[in-house]
């Protein structure tokens, strides 16, 4: 794979480099975990040794920096770059844990429709020249913010929780994306115990409707909240089940032949037993 390059212009003598993959993480509905998913998949991919740029396209409501724990390092943002006040290099913030992972933060004090779609497309194109993966954290909704976020992408990951409203919105978003983006599905916040009791839509229920290639399933874990509080994505901890699940999804994105991670039903069984006997497991 290619090295990080300071510039992609005027490189006639350079060998042709493969473009990185630009993947938009989207969902339609808000609050299903797009940002958490983007941060964790970016972290997991970087740990695999590939270069990753994360772009927070949620202009006006930036959060990816928080989830990554980088909020104090942000000096410039997406619109600074698009409006050519700073160079891309000045705006990209390296991650705390991996120098292969960088973040381009969203502008907080601006609005989504201030983003020029064509400039956004060009920005993602230039990131693809330099990074093997460009993950774009899409804002909720299907308006201009969504269109800008998908503009430069050539693939999509849709995040869906096992809820009627989330599935409906994903269905709509997938319709808008069309086939070009080959959307793949991450089911987030699944609670295996509730599924067992028939109180939550199962993975099969969701995907019987969406019929998308399944990247993996992430359980609804208190740990996610804790890690978000700290600004340390759970994917940093491969030993934690959910951390491992993000790594498995990253592996699948990279093309490894591994099965989609599922929240372990066996463990939840033990958890149940534990809770029956008043244990704390």
């Amino acid at each position, binding site marked *: 794979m290619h090295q990080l390059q300071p510039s992609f212009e005027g490189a006639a003598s350079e060998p042709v480099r493969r473009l990185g993959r630009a993947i938009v993480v989207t969902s339609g509905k808000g609050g299903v975990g797009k940002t958490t998913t983007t941060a964790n998949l970016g972290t997991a991919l970087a740990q695999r040794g590939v270069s990753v740029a994360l772009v927070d396209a949620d202009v006006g409501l930036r959060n990816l920096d928080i989830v990554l724990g980088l909020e104090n390092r942000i000096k410039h943002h997406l619109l600074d770059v698009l409006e050519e006040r700073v160079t891309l290099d000045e705006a990209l913030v390296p991650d705390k844990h991996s120098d292969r992972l960088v973040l381009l933060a969203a502008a907080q004090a601006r609005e989504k429709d201030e983003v020029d779609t064509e400039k956004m497309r060009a920005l993602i194109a230039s990131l693809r020249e330099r990074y093997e993966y460009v993950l774009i954290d899409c804002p909720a909704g299907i308006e201009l913010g969504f269109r800008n976020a998908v503009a430069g992408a050539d693939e999509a990951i849709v995040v869906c929780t096992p*809820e*009627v409203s989330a*599935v*409906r919105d994903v*269905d*709509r978003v997938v*319709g808008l994306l069309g086939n070009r983006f080959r959307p793949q599905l991450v089911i987030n916040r699944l609670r295996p115990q*509730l*599924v*067992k*009791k*028939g*109180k*939550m*839509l*199962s993975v099969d*229920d969701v995907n019987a*409707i969406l019929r998308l290639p399944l990247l993996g399933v992430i359980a609804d874990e208190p740990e996610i909240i804790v890690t978000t509080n700290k600004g340390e994505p759970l994917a940093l901890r491969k030993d934690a089940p959910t951390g491992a699940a993000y790594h498995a999804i990253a592996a699948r994105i990279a093309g490894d032949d591994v099965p989609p991670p599922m929240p372990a039903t066996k463990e939840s069984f033990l958890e*149940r037993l534990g809770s*029956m006997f008043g244990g704390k497991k």
Partner: protein
Amino acid sequence: MIDFLKRLFGQTGSSATAKERLRLVLMTDHLELAPDMIDAMKRDLVDVISRYVEVDRDRIEVNFEQQDRALAMLANIPILSVNRPPVNRAGNGNGNGNGHGRAAEPAQAAAVAAAPNVSSPGAQAATDSIVTRRRRRRKKNQSIPAGAKPATAH
């Protein structure tokens, strides 16, 4: 433990409700998002019905309505004339017989001429796919002969 097993294998919880609601809402969404398809279906529908009766193409209404456990298509298709001239249709005897139970004297060329005349109310029939009792009743009441009269009277 028994309680646990019961919970494990028994009960269908609210997820079944969720699934059902999702199925219906998505059907409605998909229809709403495919106006072209609905237009095409409307055209085809009218083409078929027009083999038997003359309908008022401008006043056709096709709506979708969520009923208890199904999505229903409700079509309101005003009929201008039942007694079409027995032209070019090979099975025209069949067509007349099928014309909602009354064949009778075709008014020949009257049908076309009658068109503007019959924009008056009454000449409506409802066709329905997933038929509800309510609709069926209305269909019965909508005395098509009444609608046909102006055509023959003309």
